[in-house]
């Protein structure tokens, strides 16, 4: 009984909306595009936020990364030729960090080397990183072939190397290269594995992004001096760097920021000239997340305004409809309709209008998102909550903007309404 009554009310509402098809359709269009815009904008925001998260997750949210850096003053001064610049992180820094902070699980030092590397006929300058096996555990990466570096390789100072995908590509080495040797300068290294570069979508910087090969750090230290000659715009520059990077893994995510602060204090003490950088992916993650949220809700607000305009359109039409149907309202009231029944009659119409518009909008929204992705390459993700939110808002708009005209209709004096023409 109750449901059949609702059904009849709905039918009545739909029927009276269909009486003015063009008008109802145009009114609905406001909601369709309002909801569509909301869904599409949330999709853009969500896409941006997921991209930022993925990029930073690739760096490991429990990690802290210290990087050697030539500070700005020195860089300017290095205009004076053939001067050896010594800067950056030391093995001592790594040890100090490991020994000072209980919350630190492990530390991984890395050392960069650039060498011409030969494989068969092929040669290329590779960016080689000397590191420890822990490197491969801090940031998970796919092994394409073979294996990664193990503790025994380090202990035995083995002449082995792990190529990254990019390194393998430079040497035109396929997976059958495993077990064969590449020559780095005068030295031979056995290739034990190929790993996939850890990349973030959209090509953000990751620890692997500029690495072609890994070798044990003790081998690197033994064979290659800390001195590196760099050719830059006609002049030679020599720089001496002990460690290029120190990766610090913290046991518990909760302690990442306090450890980072401690490291920062320690480093200012031992490196007063500031020849290092401390990068905390987690902090960046937080900032990126906050940034993405602001971005998302800004877009949402803009879209919501168009929905508001759609709602005002509905109200406008319903007010006109109430005026047009004043006499009908008078007749219904004279027959015995209660005020609430008149309110319900008009509310059903606006809600049907806005909900239908909302439903179509949830189809239009993802379509707009797809078009945005197609046209601009911006990632978009339509999350379920945005659909529910949009439908909910459109229903609410129907009720909020329909209520005033409906109440106005119900409050008409039946006698006056009956006389209206």
């Amino acid at each position, binding site marked *: *009984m109750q449901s*059949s*009554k609702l059904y*009849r009310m709905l039918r009545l509402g739909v*029927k*009276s909306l269909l*009486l003015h098809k063009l008008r109802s359709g145009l009114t609905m269009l406001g909601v369709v595009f309002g909801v569509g815009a909301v869904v599409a904008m949330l999709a853009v925001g969500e896409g941006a936020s997921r991209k930022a998260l993925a990029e930073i997750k690739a760096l490991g949210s429990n990690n802290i990364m210290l990087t050697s850096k030539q500070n700005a003053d020195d860089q300017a001064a290095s205009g004076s030729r053939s001067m050896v610049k010594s800067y950056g992180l030391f093995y001592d820094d790594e040890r100090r960090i490991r020994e000072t902070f209980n919350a630190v699980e492990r530390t991984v030092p890395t050392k960069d080397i650039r060498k011409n590397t030969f494989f068969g006929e092929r040669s290329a300058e590779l960016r080689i990183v000397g590191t420890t096996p822990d490197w491969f555990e801090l940031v998970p990466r796919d092994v394409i072939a073979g294996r990664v570096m193990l503790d025994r390789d380090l202990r035995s100072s083995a002449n082995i190397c792990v190529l990254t995908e990019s390194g393998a590509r430079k040497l035109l080495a396929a997976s059958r290269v495993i077990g064969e040797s590449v020559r780095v300068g005068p030295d031979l290294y056995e290739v034990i594995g190929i790993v996939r570069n850890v990349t973030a979508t959209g090509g953000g910087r990751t620890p692997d992004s500029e690495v072609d090969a890994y070798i044990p750090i003790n081998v690197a230290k033994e064979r290659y001096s800390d001195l590196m000659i760099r050719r830059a715009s006609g002049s030679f520059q020599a720089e001496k760097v002990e460690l290029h990077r120190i990766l610090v893994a913290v046991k518990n995510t909760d302690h990442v920021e306090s450890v980072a602060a401690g490291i920062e204090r320690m480093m200012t003490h031992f490196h007063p000239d500031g020849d290092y950088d401390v990068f905390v992916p987690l902090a960046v993650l937080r900032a990126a997340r906050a940034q993405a949220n602001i971005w998302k809700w800004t877009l949402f607000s803009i879209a919501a305004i168009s929905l508001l305009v759609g709602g005002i359109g509905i109200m406008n039409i319903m007010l006109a409809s109430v005026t047009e149907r004043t*006499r*009908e309202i*008078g*007749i*219904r*009231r*004279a*027959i*015995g*309709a*209660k*005020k*609430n*029944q008149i309110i319900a009659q008009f509310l059903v119409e606006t809600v049907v209008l806005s909900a239908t518009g909302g439903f179509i909008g949830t189809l239009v929204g993802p379509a707009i998102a797809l078009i945005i992705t197609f046209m601009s390459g911006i990632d978009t993700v339509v999350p379920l909550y945005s659909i529910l939110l949009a439908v909910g808002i459109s229903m609410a708009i129907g009720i909020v903007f329909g209520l005033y005209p409906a109440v106005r209709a119900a409050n008409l004096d*039946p*006698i006056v309404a*009956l006389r209206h023409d």
Partner: protein
Amino acid sequence: MTDPPFPTTTPNADSTDPSTGIGSDTRSSNNGLLIELTDLRKTYHMGTQQVHALAGVDLQLGRGEFWAILGASGSGKSTMLNVLGCLDRPTSGTYRLEGQDVAELDDDALSEFRLRHLGFIFQSFNLIPQLTVRENIELPLYYLGWEAERSAEHAGVLADQVGLGDRLDHRPSELSGGQQQRVAVARALANDPPVLLADEPTGNLDSSTSGQIMALLDELNQRGKTIIMVTHERDIAAHAQHRLHMRDGIIDRIERDV
């Protein structure tokens, strides 16, 4: 709830829901008395001026009677009918219908009261143009909460009674004035109200169709409906047994057929 029996055979046909508070006890105790007006006044304020549309009306109407209200334009006929129809509230005085003091009812109760006790017939028919004949007749049943199937069927029976059984799916605009007014009569009867109120029901009709409508009202009155009709035409008023003449908001005189 029972189907309103049509044609109504007993003036006291009780289709009243007890929940409206109009007990049948009240009615039987006032045997025959249906409407009682005591010093009824309705004053309109037009700026600083006061218009006494009703200036103290005392009247008693019996069940099953046929009344005509006559009078010059502006004498208060419509105001009287609106108050009787519970569409308007008097400024002072009491109005009892079926023993119920109407002043005690709030807006919702008044709506319910109209729904169960009153049927309206207007000069300009007042059908809803976008609804079909059937849907127009069904309106009171919709608000009474009847199921769709039963109410559609009942609307068909009523349309037959007024001779429009073959026009159920037509819109009012496709009907002549006389036919529209017959639809309006059928609608007024749908909830089987004891009282029918008609404001110049033949005012927009030519004399032959007027005759048809009046014949319909005569028949309904013979079957027990109480009818109160405003008119300014003497020959139309002649159908009623009681003719109330109004002048400046008061009852001038009452003529009765013996």
